[in-house]
């Protein structure tokens, strides 16, 4: 029983990173009604750029690496918007889907090219700290990852519901044309959405690097899949949904791993998704109006 609890808590902590990736997908989807398939790769790209800090100043504290990843993530987010969305007519969903796939491949290849395909070690915030509560162990670094994720989510929710930019973003996501008629510059809001999700992605990438201990371009495909699953289970366009679904997927994944082994783990995660699609196709928090 203790084993199970331990496994679930580890999964929940790691699930926070899935939640962050899921938020990125869901936010872009909510605002533009488009899927940005390059998001997970861009997040990893941001995390890799964070490593550049160590190149410039060897022995820099891990906090600086995280900050570098945050900034780089934002810049990459803006570049993705510019190259994959800005000049392509919004009425054509296939074209932007394909251009983001192109971006996914491009980012992956740039990473492979620069690092020669070798996994890169990622600094942890601090050395192994274990919290013991009874027979129960919590990995200190995972706990920090979790807390940082919660902090990011809180920041995002504050941005969306307490600022003018957030109001504009929500207005565009509800009715782009009406928002434009009210004097909101839709293109600017779209670009800002990409920058904000990029910032989140950079942090998420850095935390995944810290939690796993290393970064590899091989991570981008599974992260894309997990992020999309989280988005759908949570309900497209719903931020609280993505958070809860991220934790749910993280927890379930570890339980399946405990009972069925690592090779079959993801298979059961797919089954979980299918159960949701059949019994609750709108996800946990489906938007009320039936949007496509």
């Amino acid at each position, binding site marked *: 029983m203790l084993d199970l609890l331990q496994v679930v808590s580890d999964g929940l902590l790691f699930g926070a990173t899935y939640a962050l990736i899921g938020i990125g997908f869901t936010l872009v989807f909510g605002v533009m009604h488009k899927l940005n398939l390059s998001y997970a790769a861009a997040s990893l790209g941001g995390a890799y750029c964070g490593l550049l800090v160590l190149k410039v100043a060897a022995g820099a504290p891990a906090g600086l690496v995280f900050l570098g990843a945050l900034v780089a993530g934002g810049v990459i987010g803006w570049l993705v918007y510019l190259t994959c969305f800005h000049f392509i007519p919004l009425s054509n969903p296939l074209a932007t889907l394909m251009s983001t*796939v192109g971006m996914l491949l491009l980012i992956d290849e740039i990473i492979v090219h620069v690092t020669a395909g070798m996994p890169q070690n990622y600094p942890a915030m601090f050395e192994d700290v274990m919290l013991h509560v009874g027979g129960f162990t919590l990995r200190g670094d995972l706990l920090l990852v979790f807390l940082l994720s919660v902090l990011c989510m809180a920041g995002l929710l504050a941005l969306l519901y307490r600022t003018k930019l957030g109001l504009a973003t929500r207005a565009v996501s509800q009715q782009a044309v009406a928002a434009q008629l009210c004097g909101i510059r839709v293109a600017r809001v779209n670009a800002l959405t990409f920058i904000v999700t990029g910032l989140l992605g950079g942090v998420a990438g850095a935390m995944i690097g810290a939690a796993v201990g290393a970064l590899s371009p091989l991570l981008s495909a599974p992260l894309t899949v997990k992020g999309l699953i989280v988005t759908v289970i949570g309900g497209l366009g719903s931020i609280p949904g993505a958070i809860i679904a991220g934790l749910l997927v993280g927890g379930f994944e570890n339980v399946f791993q405990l009972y069925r082994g690592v090779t079959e783990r993801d298979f059961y995660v797919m089954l979980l998704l299918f159960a949701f*699609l*059949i019994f609750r196709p709108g996800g946990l928090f489906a938007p009320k109006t039936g949007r496509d």
Partner: protein
Amino acid sequence: MDFYYGLAQIVGVHTLLGLSAYIVLLTGQVSLAQAAFFGIGAYTAGMLTVLAGWHIVPALGAGAVVGATTACAVGFPALRVKGLMLVVATLAFGEGVRLFFFNFDYQVAKGGIKVGPLGGEGFRQIRYFPEHGWTTGEVMVFIWAFVLVAMAALWWFDRSRYGAVLRAVGEDELAAQSVGVNLTAVKVSAMTVGGAVAGLGGGIYAHYTTHIEHSNFNVLVATFALAYPIVGGLSNVFGTLAAVIFVQVFLIEGLRDLGDWRNLLFGALIILAMNLRPHGLFGRRRA
């Protein structure tokens, strides 16, 4: 010369893969499950020739039938969700199938060695062509016979009433439904035809590579299947063929001299193509 025959084989198989996504795309559905149907066809046909000793033509037919059946079965629940939800649902299905093959062992001792699929190590010894003494040229002609039949069939579909109905659903579901088109029937039938074409392509693929494994049917392959018709445009089947030639011959073989830089250019060129020609390289601009 064998090099060019080999290249033509690759183009043929990828054309089948692209065509399977093409017909589904006509109904406005984006399916990332095509690689899964491709894989199911590959494993089915491979197991039939290697383990059951079938002739290749019925084995390919069986691959196509199993692919179509799976696609039909997936179509009903998956098409309850629309648009981007469907992308994710089919993506998850595709990954599920890949993970199934990753864990799939079925080995039979044959002539001193064990043959058959073996989990992560894949399925080796699908040696129908070499065992029966087919030359590369003959294999190429064999493959292209199937590709041409599939292209002709889809071209004819496209021009028929059925094609008009598919496009009507793709242009505007609501309008199509209000003139009496049965949306579920149209979408599931398109999915089934797509599954059959993908299954056929997979069977051929298994036999010309002689070794298949789960990673041959991953998300990247599914993305390529979608990329061909989208990059080529949805006007007719030749757009898909042209896109396959553009990607496989020009981008992958033609730029081989560039070495490492080729992979970088690949993604960048897709982005550029979509920016310049959002309706596909050979697509007509829709009104």
